């Protein structure tokens, strides 16, 4: 890139090259952690923090990391950032940690951060790399919240249940019951629901893109995993 196009980074991250819905990366947390919209949102935010930090670090060190050892160094940096977030949240944001703590170690096994380090941060200046980390992370959050919302509504009949635990009491208003308690289809909050909803949302995204007359960006073009 001659001049950095921040608009492009934002659009890519949030929609066009969305980590989950276009590149089909990070499938493990996308399915395992989306039994409710709140869970998906929390997992997404934690991932975004780690992605922003590790993208920035890799970009800062990009001239010292040689081609041969880049993958172990990337993994080291992601793992270090995850541990950092895990420890500091446990010590100083304990209420939030009790809700999110479960998700944080799982970020290490997410290949989306690794893919962005390899495809973007290792070649770009620190600021664009940071932006890419933030917006890819937010795009991931968006996708996980959407998957979580669909599964939660169809599975338990609620939306954003326990949001006040994650975001604070002010967000109590978000907690909604849309269907009576016994109407939910249990399967949707069990693993098969994750596959179904993720698949349907991938299709939905492509249909929207088609309708908008865009060329479909096939995923995986520059992914590592």
């Amino acid at each position, binding site marked *: 890139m001659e001049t950095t196009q921040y608009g492009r980074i934002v659009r890519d991250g949030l929609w066009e090259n969305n980590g989950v819905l276009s590149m089909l990366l990070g499938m493990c947390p996308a399915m395992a952690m989306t039994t409710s919209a709140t869970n998906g949102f929390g997992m997404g935010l934690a991932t975004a923090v780690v992605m922003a930090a590790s993208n920035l670090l890799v970009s800062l*060190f990009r001239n010292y*990391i040689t081609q041969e050892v880049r993958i172990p160094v990337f993994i080291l940096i992601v793992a270090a950032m995850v541990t*950092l977030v895990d420890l500091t949240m446990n010590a*100083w944001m304990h209420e939030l940690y009790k809700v999110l703590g479960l998700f944080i170690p799982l970020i290490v096994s997410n290949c989306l951060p690794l893919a962005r380090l390899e495809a973007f941060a290792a070649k770009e200046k620190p600021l664009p790399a940071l932006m890419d980390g933030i917006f890819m992370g937010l795009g991931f959050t968006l996708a996980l919240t959407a998957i979580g919302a669909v599964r939660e509504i169809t599975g338990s009949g609620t939306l954003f249940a326990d949001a006040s635990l994650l975001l604070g009491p002010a967000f109590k208003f978000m907690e909604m019951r849309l269907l009576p308690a016994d109407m939910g289809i249990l399967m949707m909050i069990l693993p098969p629901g994750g596959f179904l909803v993720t698949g349907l949302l991938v299709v939905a995204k492509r249909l929207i893109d088609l309708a908008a007359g865009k060329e479909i960006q096939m995923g995986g073009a520059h992914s590592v995993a």
Partner: protein
Amino acid sequence: MKQGTMIHAAILGAFCLGFGIMLALIEQVTAEDIKARAMEDRQASLSQVLPAEILDNNPVTDTVVMKNDEGKEITVFRARKGGEVTGMAYEIFGSGYAGEMKLMLGVDAAGNVLGVRVLAHKETPGLGDKIETKKGDWILKFTGLSLGNPPVDKWKVKKDGGQFDQFSGATITPRGVVGAIRKGLEFFAVHKAEMMGGAQ
């Protein structure tokens, strides 16, 4: 060894060293706070099975470690009032529909149940998870019961001829919980002296 390889190894080593030192420092800085938070969590969860009226000590620090009948190490947290042991809480284990369930059982000095709470389980959401206080009050029904009340052969779910309700769609989960509590009380009956004894 080629010189090139050495450089790569040195770079990787340098990164490992650098981030290793960083993490060690952060671990140092946060260790105290994390310990304090863990203590608060413990206290909060114990206070659900050990009512505040029966204790004037901190059960988290008044413990004895024992082996349960399966050979698993369990920590017994003792509640004292005026130095006398008035009750205790310890972990019990039951097998559920999807693996082991971990519960905390509180009993008073006479062996009556003060309270039971589920600590961890993998039961089916919407069916077996009604054992959580968040999803139902089923688990509260055990408070006040003991090995003689109901009689030992009634410490079963109704389906097995006992007196405890299973809930619709799930029998295995309540069966596991009832069994775990019964075993927990039997353990208390046998090891009472050992659980009460020991230095404060």
